[in-house]
């Protein structure tokens, strides 16, 4: 199987879908001549030309809305945000127009559009440039929210997103673009709403996604294994739709759940998971559900404060030990 970086995997997905469907085009800041701020669209301008690979001014509300309008009348835009932080400038378009159009128009207009780009913290980018926004987008009916954690999923899920007839919020990780992984040979897609058990285990279930899954949860699970604690690690891959059955079945087996996410605690994705699990698995739970999140403060610049605020391996280990009543 070919081994490619997440950056290349995303690039292949866009390339293949653009080759397959004339209606697909890419639009965003620096996506064409600069090959993308993070080089995700490398080479696409050369291949597809400026009609389909479009550099925009810094005008997120405008070009997101243009994407939505074009999607309503038959095109299939991919809108790149240089980072998801800048999507907040286009929040009205994504929420009031993309998410609600189909329902509000009584089924007249669907909006087949993908909004994509990196989300979450990188290194020392401070409050405005470090936000994990999946929970707010997952809040809105009408949006699908996708967060791949490896090359295979990045490619397969992005292809599905482009073919989906709904607006899809596709959140990547700047810090993971260079990370390599195997992808299947040739054409494939990965359906939404199907999570993956990354590692089977018996004592505790951990649900985590994107960078925090790979950089924090996986490592914590390794350390816990050394202590003789067997963790079942689940990557839901899509936040909305969420693969509830996979999570419920795991919790019914392990009887304990820890959710590890990058975002803030209040009304975070983990809060919803915790609720669903307490509703569906109440009789199976041996401990209250624990969550590891970012501290409930804007993320500071200083390195020591930044790492203190974000989830880390120690915090995950502590949460797991807590649900096992080991401390």
């Amino acid at each position, binding site marked *: 199987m070919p081994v490619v970086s997440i950056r290349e995997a995303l690039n292949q997905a866009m390339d293949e879908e653009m080759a397959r469907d004339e209606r697909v085009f890419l639009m965003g800041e620096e996506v064409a001549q600069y090959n993308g701020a993070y080089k995700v669209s490398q080479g696409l301008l050369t291949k597809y030309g400026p009609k389909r690979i479009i550099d925009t*001014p810094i005008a997120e509300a405008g070009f997101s809305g243009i994407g939505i309008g074009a999607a309503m009348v038959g095109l299939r835009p991919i809108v790149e945000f240089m980072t998801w932080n*800048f999507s907040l400038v286009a929040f009205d378009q994504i929420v009031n127009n993309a998410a609600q159009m189909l329902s509000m128009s009584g089924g007249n207009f669907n909006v087949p559009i993908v909004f994509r780009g990196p989300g979450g913290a990188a290194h020392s980018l*401070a*409050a*405005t440039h470090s936000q994990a926004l999946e929970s707010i987008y997952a809040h809105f009916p009408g949006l699908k929210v996708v967060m791949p954690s490896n090359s295979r999923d990045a490619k397969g899920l992005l292809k599905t997103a482009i073919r989906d007839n709904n607006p899809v919020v596709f959140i990547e990780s700047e810090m993971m673009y260079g990370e390599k992984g195997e992808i299947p040979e040739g054409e494939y897609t990965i359906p939404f709403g199907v999570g993956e058990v990354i590692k089977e285990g018996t004592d505790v279930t951990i649900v985590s996604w994107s960078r925090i899954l790979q950089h924090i949860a996986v490592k914590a699970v390794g350390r816990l294994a050394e202590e003789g604690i067997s963790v079942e690690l689940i990557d839901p891959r899509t936040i909305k739709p969420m693969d509830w059955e996979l999570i419920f079945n795991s919790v019914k087996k392990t009887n304990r759940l820890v959710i590890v996410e990058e975002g803030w605690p209040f009304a975070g994705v983990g809060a919803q998971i915790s609720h669903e699990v307490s509703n569906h698995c109440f009789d199976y739970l041996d401990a209250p559900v624990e969550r590891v999140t970012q501290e409930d403060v804007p993320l500071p610049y200083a390195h020591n404060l930044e790492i203190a605020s974000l989830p880390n391996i120690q915090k995950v280990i502590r949460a797991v030990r807590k649900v096992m009543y080991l401390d």
Partner: protein
Amino acid sequence: MNNILPLTKPVTKNLLGIAPEILLKWYDEMLLIRRFEEKCAQLYGMGKIGGFCHLYNGQEAIAAGSIGAITPDDYVITAYRDHGLAISKGVDPRRILAELLGKHTGTTKGKGGSMHLFDREKNFLGGHAIVGGHIPIGTGAAFACKYRGEKRVCLCFMGDGATNIGEFHESLNLAALWKLPVIYIIENNKYGMGTSVDRASSIEALHKKAAAYNMRSAVIMDGNDVLKIYQTVKAAVDHARSSYEPSLLEVQTFRYRGHSMSDPIHGHYRTKEEVETQKKLDPLTVFAEALKDAHLAADEYFESAEARIKSIIEECVQFTESSPEPPLEELYTDVYAE
């Protein structure tokens, strides 16, 4: 791309009758900014400064000339390329450097970093990293000035790229409609990251965007001419103080470095020659020559200025290196006001 500044324009020759000590102060300030940014580049290279760091090299005359035209009571706000404007507004350079290294003695205790410098005492309203997001805020400060019946103004700086975002247009309309004492200053350095002005804006003469809002405007074709900048900003400030009316000023300038420290100096979007040609028009050099021609300063002055600035930079480094990191308790402070 023909974006080269006019080679022929000298610094305003008669020095406008401005007191020599003020002119020399501006020169020193520009030199301090230049050397400060060079130190930042070095410290970034050493991995001591993290995150995004956008340098001001080449644009120094705008900071000195514009802020030279206001008083300490007036407000200044800008985007993330903020070190130079903060220095000119009187923010302690030691605290700026400490901020860049994430130290507790920094302008925001290490919380904001390079892109988010703030200083309430100096009426420096920040450093803002979301393009265009600060333009309504600067307009709001001007609103408050008028509301309180004061004669203060706000200088609201922005890049060329920021003139394409909605907040710019909403702000200009409101400022003109409500007659607010704000002076918008576009630092047109020809590019927003790798995108040249002509690829991002339907009109290249950015100051003309004021026409849509019935706002007075002016363009300074030579952003290396600190006196011309001073003169133009001063006229706009005087007008704002007397009539509460806003202005849109465009200054043609050039950044010597890459967009931020993590970007290449020219990349594919501009040529090495373009950068080198622009550097020949260096604002410090042309100002120094004008000062010499007017017999306001001789070679010895410039040598001593270098020495003085060098020791300030050394002090900044020493202050920063000996400052502590923010304590972990700081993580939970400043989230809500008392």
